[in-house]
Every structure is written in structure tokens, then in C-alpha cells.
């Protein structure tokens, strides 16, 4: 319909190179350490996130050892067990997934994909990483503080989070945790401003919103949500810090701890839960939306087919982002809040399933009549769909208020959220790393090691979390270091738990192969060239690989088309890059 190629090129302003905006490194320090280059910051963010993620992985082994073989390991006391689960959850959700998707992939991909030289505010972007690093160090410090880290569960519910009956509650643990969260939020806000403003202001000429790859849409929407949701965690953390350190009673009612009247009075634990979940639910989508976006691009590229229903995909991302702010209390159906809220929040929660389902259909329909290359990124994308569909569907149990009543606070919940916001996004992270590694390093990751890693991780993770739903269905509550053999258990869950634990250890060790591959391939991987996947988006069209500071040589690319021109009928190749002016093909013929 609209063929604007003709005659329009003249009015395009000359490619300005806003060199003054960029701070070029002058020394080793400013090039590799205090760098303002988003790509270096991305690698710093990713490296730190993966490092702290390994700590969380080890913690998960420890807790699985306890659950699978209770009583075998003397050093895992209940206190230690609660510290392990708390730190595992907090690290995985905030310091790994949020930081890696937004700080890592966001930093690397946004400027490259929208055709910008760098983030809008490189200096602030650099500060963002360093504050994140301090937040991580404060978190790590709590492991060495007297009394150890907090064991309040990652939800940090008061009153127990700041009382003596909980590990770290009356010691430094909880204080360090809250301080670390506050720092993380400050640091994240600095980074988040960059991601949003770069998408708003930094897009190159011709890059309309509807030409953005879905990866950018996902990260952009998630960042907007994070900027609006993290303040809730900030407020909750500050208020709890006041309660703990200064003796205020925001969340603390009058209570008797171990026979002793405390000076607190009148506060509301539910208030904390509202604030926490006002952050906590959007957080699920802050992790999921970038994954949605990235996986769309992986599937499209490796199936050599445009993403099916691009417009629907964009709308779904926006709708999910908006709706996710009015579903938070579905985490609180049995919290004792006003029961009428249950009707409202169950309805909104199940409505959000519709746009989410549309996204799933569109991924699968993209495969339909495609030309599917079963590369590692594609395999991980398929694994994502399986685990995400599984975890998403069990969400319908927990979102439907009355079905949630028997299942809430059981292992079913644990299995559900690990499947949907643990395994599924991590599959995308792996797929994305295999996909963009050649752009970051110039070399491919080793295929054999990658295949080994994929099969163990996919089959293993499914074997861990699918049976775990049934442990919960039997009635085993979460956060129990051991269940014993209560009468309600229909069949002993010990064997099942032992099986899950073994699978968890195996999957965990497979990640070491991945880490080895990640480092080994920097030097020994096959040379990749600039665009090994024959992809359309701008990051693959840079003049050099890895892209230099400033991303695109002298001139910024001009965008002529959307991000999904794969297998266009009549085109010479099965992809047309976004900055390919293209000729000989009129759009009218395709309507």
C-alpha cells in the first residue's frame, strides 16, 4: 500500500554523528572497568549476575540435599535451610533475572537494535552498574555477618522477618538485605531511565515503534513496569528498615514474642504484603516480558519466518504490562485480606491469561510452515515454550481464587513459579546467549557442549519441576526442611523428593559445562562472521564484529523495513536486513 521508497530519500537529513555525546576511553581503566560503553556495561552486569547466580545455584543444591535426603547432612539445620531458600529466591529473582535481562541484555541489545550509538546517558548507565555491584556485595556480606543472612523467605513478611525467631531477624542479616535492595533499586532506576529514554529518543531514522524487534518491545515495556513497580519495594524496604532499626510500627502489631511483650503496636502486616506484591507481581512480568520478546526473535530468525501476528504480539505485551499492575493481590488470597477482593483479583488474573495465550499461539504458529533450523537457540526457544505453557497453565490453578485455597503455600506453588519464571526465562537466557554470543565475541559457542547442555538442562529441569507439582498436590507445604511421614500423605514423597534432588544436582552440574563453553569459546570457538544467523535486525549489520564503541561506524543505519522480513516472496535471499533499501519489490504485491 504505502511504498515510500521513491522520492523520500532526499528529505532524510544527513547522518549526523553526535560524537560529542560519547566519552571515548583513554586508558585501560576507562575501557574495561569504568567504561561508559553500554556493551561493556552489559557484560559487567551479566558477569556479576551470573557470578551471584552461581551462588544461588549452589544454595539450591544444598536445599535439595536437605529435601531429598533429610537428616543426612548435619550442617543443614532449619536455620541454615531457611537462609538458603531466602537467599536463593532473592538472588535468582532480583539479582540474577532482573539484572541479567534488563542490565545485561537491555544494555547490549537496545542501542544496537534501535540503531543508537550508545545509551542516552552513558555516565548514569555506568553508575547504575557500580551501584548494582555494591548492592550485590552488601548482599554477599550478609553471608559473613554474625548470625548469617536473613532466613525470612524471599517475601520478607513481617513481623517474623525482623524478629528473633527468624535467622538474621534480630541480627545484621535482614538489615543488610534491605539495604542491598534499596541500593539495587537506586541503581536499577539509573539504568532503567537509560533503557526507556534510549528507546524513546535514540531510535535511528526510520525506526518507528512498529519496526522495533519484539526483543526491544519486551525489554522496553518491562523496564517501564520496573521503574513503576520497584518504588513499591523501595517503600516497603524503607518502612521495614524503620521498623527494625528505629522501632516504628508501620507493619508491626502489638505482639508477644516468646512470652515477652514487645513495644510495637498497631501496625499492619498486610500493608507490607500489599506493597510487596504491588512490586512482586509486576516483577514476574518484568522477567517474563523480555523473555517473551527475545524468544519471539529467536523463533522468527531460526524458523526463517516472520513472527506470526506481530501487531498482536506488541499489543499483548502492552496489555500484559498494564494488567499486571492490577493483579497483585492474587498472591494474597489466603492472607486474610478482605475476602471480596478475591472476586476482583481472580477475574483480572484470569483475564491476563488471554493475551499471554495469544503470545503462545503466535510462537507456535510461527513454526507452522516455517523452515525450522534446529540450532541451539531454536532448541532453547522450544524448551521455553514447553516450560512456559506448563507453568502458565498451572498459574490458572493458583489464580482462580478458590482453587488456590488448597494449593497455596504448598510445593505446587514452588513448582509453578519455578517453571514459569525460573526455568522458562532461563531457557530464553541460554538461547539468547547462544544466539548473540557470536556478535559479542565474534566466535560461535561450541555446538557439542551446547547440545549436551541443552538436553540435560531441558529434560532435567522438566523432571525436577513437573513431579514437584504433585508433591504439592499431596499437601506438602513449602518452606518445610522436612515433611516426615504425616498421615495425609497418600504415597511417601521421599522417593520423589530424592529423585528431584538427584535431577537438580545433575542439571546444576550441566551448567558448569555451559560456563566452560562460555569461556572456552572466546578463544577456541569457530569464527562467526558478522551475521552468522542471517538475521535482519540492526545489531547483525554492524561494520565490525564485535561492534566498536559507538556501534555503527561513521554513519548510523537508516531503517527501511520492519524486523521480520524473512522468506519474503520474490526476494533474492531468505532475509532482508532492516537497513536494506531493497528494490524491485513492491509492498502492494504482498497485501
Amino acid at each position, binding site marked *: 500500500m504505502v511504498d515510500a521508497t521513491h522520492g523520500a530519500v532526499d528529505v532524510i537529513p544527513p547522518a549526523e554523528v553526535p560524537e560529542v555525546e560519547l566519552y571515548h576511553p583513554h586508558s585501560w581503566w576507562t575501557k574495561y572497568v569504568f567504561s561508559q560503553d553500554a556493551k561493556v556495561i552489559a557484560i559487567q552486569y551479566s558477569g556479576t549476575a551470573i557470578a551471584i547466580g552461581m551462588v544461588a545455584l549452589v544454595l539450591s543444591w544444598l536445599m535439595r540435599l536437605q529435601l531429598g535426603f533429610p537428616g543426612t547432612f548435619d550442617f543443614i539445620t532449619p536455620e541454615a535451610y531457611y537462609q538458603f531458600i531466602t537467599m536463593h529466591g532473592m538472588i535468582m529473582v532480583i539479582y540474577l533475572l532482573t539484572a541479567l535481562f534488563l542490565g545485561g541484555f537491555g544494555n547490549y541489545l537496545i542501542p544496537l537494535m534501535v540503531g543508537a550509538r550508545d545509551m542516552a546517558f552513558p555516565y548514569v548507565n555506568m553508575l547504575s552498574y557500580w551501584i548494582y555491584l555494591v548492592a550485590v556485595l552488601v548482599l554477599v556480606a550478609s553471608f559473613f555477618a554474625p548470625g548469617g543472612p536473613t532466613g525470612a523467605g524471599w517475601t520478607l513478611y513481617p513481623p517474623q522477618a525482623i524478629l528473633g525467631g527468624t535467622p538474621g531477624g534480630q541480627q545484621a542479616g535482614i538489615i543488610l538485605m534491605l539495604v542491598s535492595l534499596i541500593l539495587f533499586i537506586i541503581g536499577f532506576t539509573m539504568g532503567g531511565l537509560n533503557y526507556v529514554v534510549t528507546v524513546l529518543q535514540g531510535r535511528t531514522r526510520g525506526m518507528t515503534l512498529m519496526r522495533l524487534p519484539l526483543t526491544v518491545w519486551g525489554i522496553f515495556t518491562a523496564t517501564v513496569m520496573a521503574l513503576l513497580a520497584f518504588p513499591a519495594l523501595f517503600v516497603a524496604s524503607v518502612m521495614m528498615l524503620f521498623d527494625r532499626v528505629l522501632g516504628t510500627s508501620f507493619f508491626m502489631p502489638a505482639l508477644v514474642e516468646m512470652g515477652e511483650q514487645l513495644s510495637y503496636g498497631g501496625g499492619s502486616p498486610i500493608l507490607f504484603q500489599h506493597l510487596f506484591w504491588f512490586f512482586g507481581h509486576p516483577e514476574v512480568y518484568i522477567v517474563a516480558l523480555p523473555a517473551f520478546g527475545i524468544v519471539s526473535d529467536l523463533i522468527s530468525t531460526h524458523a526463517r519466518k516472520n513472527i506470526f501476528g506481530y501487531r498482536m504480539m506488541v499489543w499483548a505485551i502492552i496489555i500484559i504490562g498494564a494488567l499486571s499492575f492490577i493483579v497483585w493481590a492474587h498472591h494474597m488470597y489466603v492472607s486474610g485480606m478482605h475476602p471480596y477482593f478475591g472476586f476482583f483479583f481472580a477475574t483480572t488474573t484470569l483475564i491476563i491469561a488471554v493475551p499471554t*495465550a495469544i503470545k503462545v*499461539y503466535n510462537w507456535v504458529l510461527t513454526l507452522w510452515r516455517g523452515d525450522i533450523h534446529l540450532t541451539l537457540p531454536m532448541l532453547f526457544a522450544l524448551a521455553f515454550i514447553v516450560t512456559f505453557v506448563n507453568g502458565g497453565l498451572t498459574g490458572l*490453578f493458583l489464580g482462580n481464587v478458590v482453587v488456590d485455597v*488448597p494449593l*497455596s503455600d504448598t510445593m505446587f506453588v514452588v513448582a509453578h513459579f519455578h517453571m514459569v519464571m525460573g526455568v522458562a526465562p532461563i531457557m530464553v537466557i541460554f538461547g539468547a546467549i547462544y544466539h548473540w554470543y557470536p556478535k559479542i565475541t565474534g566466535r560461535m559457542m561450541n555446538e557439542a557442549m551446547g547440545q549436551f547442555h541443552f538436553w540435560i538442562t531441558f529434560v532435567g529441569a522438566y523432571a525436577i519441576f513437573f513431579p514437584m507439582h504433585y508433591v504439592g498436590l499431596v499437601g506438602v507445604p513449602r518452606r518445610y526442611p522436612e515433611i516426615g511421614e504425616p498421615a495425609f500423605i497418600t504415597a511417601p514423597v521421599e522417593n520423589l523428593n530424592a529423585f528431584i534432588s538427584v535431577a537438580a544436582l545433575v542439571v546444576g552440574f550441566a551448567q558448569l559445562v555451559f560456563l566452560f563453553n562460555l569461556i572456552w569459546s572466546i578463544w577456541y570457538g569457530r569464527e562467526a562472521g558478522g551475521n552468522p544467523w542471517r538475521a535482519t535486525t540492526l545489531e547483525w549489520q554492524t561494520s565490525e564484529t564485535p561492534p566498536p564503541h559507538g556501534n555503527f561506524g561513521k554513519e548510523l543505519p537508516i531503517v527501511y523495513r520492519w524486523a521480520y522480513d524473512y522468506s519474503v516472496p520474490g526476494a533474492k535471499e531468505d532475509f532482508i536486513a532492516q537497513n536494506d533499501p531493497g528494490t524491485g519489490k513492491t509492498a502492494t504485491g504482498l497485501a
Partner: protein
Amino acid sequence: MAIALVLVLVVVGSVLFHAFSPWWWTPIASNWGYIDSTLIITFWITGAVFAAVVLFMAYCVWRFRHKEGNVAHYEPENKRLEWWLTILTGLGVTAMLVPGLFVWNQFITVPADATEVEVIAQQWQWSYRLPGADGKLGTSDSRLINAENPLGINPDDPNGQDDLVVEAADLHLPMDKPVKMLLRSIDVLHDFYVPEFRAKMDMIPGSVTYFWFTPTRTGTFEVLCAELCGTGHGFMRGIVMIDTAEDYATWLGEQSTFAQLSAPEQVGAAEEAVVRP
């Protein structure tokens, strides 16, 4: 190729595990069979969707895998297909939501003839209070808690004097009588959870929450705490026994009232006076 096979195996394996594994919910002992029914509806719908999506995907991967000379089909969108899928999904979601909301309405509407029983949780034990002859529970306040009055019952409230106090012991309930469980905590969050009853609710210090149910069979059931409450969370267990009417009456007769418990000095003094020559 292997991936298509594995996807099929994932579906088949999941269905077989679901159908034949011995791990299933414990037999119900309350009136909340409706909750189980909604759960079953949800299992059927979600199970069908899971199998359909993953099998379709497996078929696509097998059918459209890359072969030399293959070219993908070009189709940016298909409005009709997308609308159909949206509507179908909407219907599926409604089929789960509507029964769910009906049952929730029942869950939060306590029948008028329900007797009240108070559960008091603390780190890490369960205590109970039952209304005495007047059928009313007296008021309580955690500020009143001390060694003599561990549940914080208001001694000035006449309704509270005949309340039966069951401290750190088993609770008995009569069969087929609806009960409203009033839930109170004196320190941190807890959650009164008996898997056989299906119902559960958090207990919040500073306020009283509730749920109701009707026990439908006699027996001994284990109470668990289902909200993290500190180091002893996993060991915070208790016992609820569902009795026949006669057994329940016997047990009720053995319990002491708040008035009896709060006058131990006089009782003790009297005993001493007897023993002392």
C-alpha cells in the same frame, strides 16, 4: 529431530504420570468437595491445552524442519485465526473462572448455624478456645497476654469467663456440624492448614481472620503451619480430631474454662491448706 520425539514424550510422560502415579491429593474430610471439583475442571482444561500446544509444536518441528531448498511460507498475520483462538481461550478461561467464583462465594459465606472455634497460633504451637455455655467467645487482646493468661483473654469480659481453653493440646470437633474457625496469632504470621479439609487461611497478629467448613468424617488429622513463621515452622504441627457427637461431648466435659484456669492460686492454696497439717 530428536526434539520432536522428546516433545511427544514430554506430553505422554506427563499424562501417564498424572494418571498412574500414586501421588494424589489426600481423601477429603470436609464439605469442600466443590473445591476438588473446580480443581478437576482446571486439570482437564489445562491438560488438554498443554497436550494440544506441545503436540502441535512437535508436529511442526518434525514436518517443517529445515531441508535443502525449503522456503518458509510468508504470512504476517491471520486476523480470523487469531480472533478464533482468542475467543476459544476466553471461553476456556471463563469455564474455569465462573465455577471458581461461585465456590469462592460459598467459601466466604459462613452459614448462620456455624459454631465458632478460635485457633490461637504462636511460635510454634497451636492453642484453641471454644465458647462456653453462653455460646459466645469473650474479647481478647495480645496486650493482656502473660504467663497466667497465655491467650490474652479479657478477664473483665463476662462472655469470656466460661470459654474453654485448650492450650497446646489437640482440638476436637463434632462431625457434620459447620464450624467457623476464628484465626488469631499472637506473634507472627501463621496459617492453619489441614490438608484433608482443603481450606486454609493466614493468621495475622493484631486481627482475626476466619474460614469455615463442615467435617464429614471422623478421624485424626494433622494440622500444619502453612505460612513461614520462623525456624520452627516445619515442626509446628498439631492434631484435630473429628468426633462423633458423644465422643465430642465427653471431650468437651474434660476441658477447663478460663475462669477455672485463671484462679489457680486459690485452688493451689486450698490444696496446700488441705495437705498442710
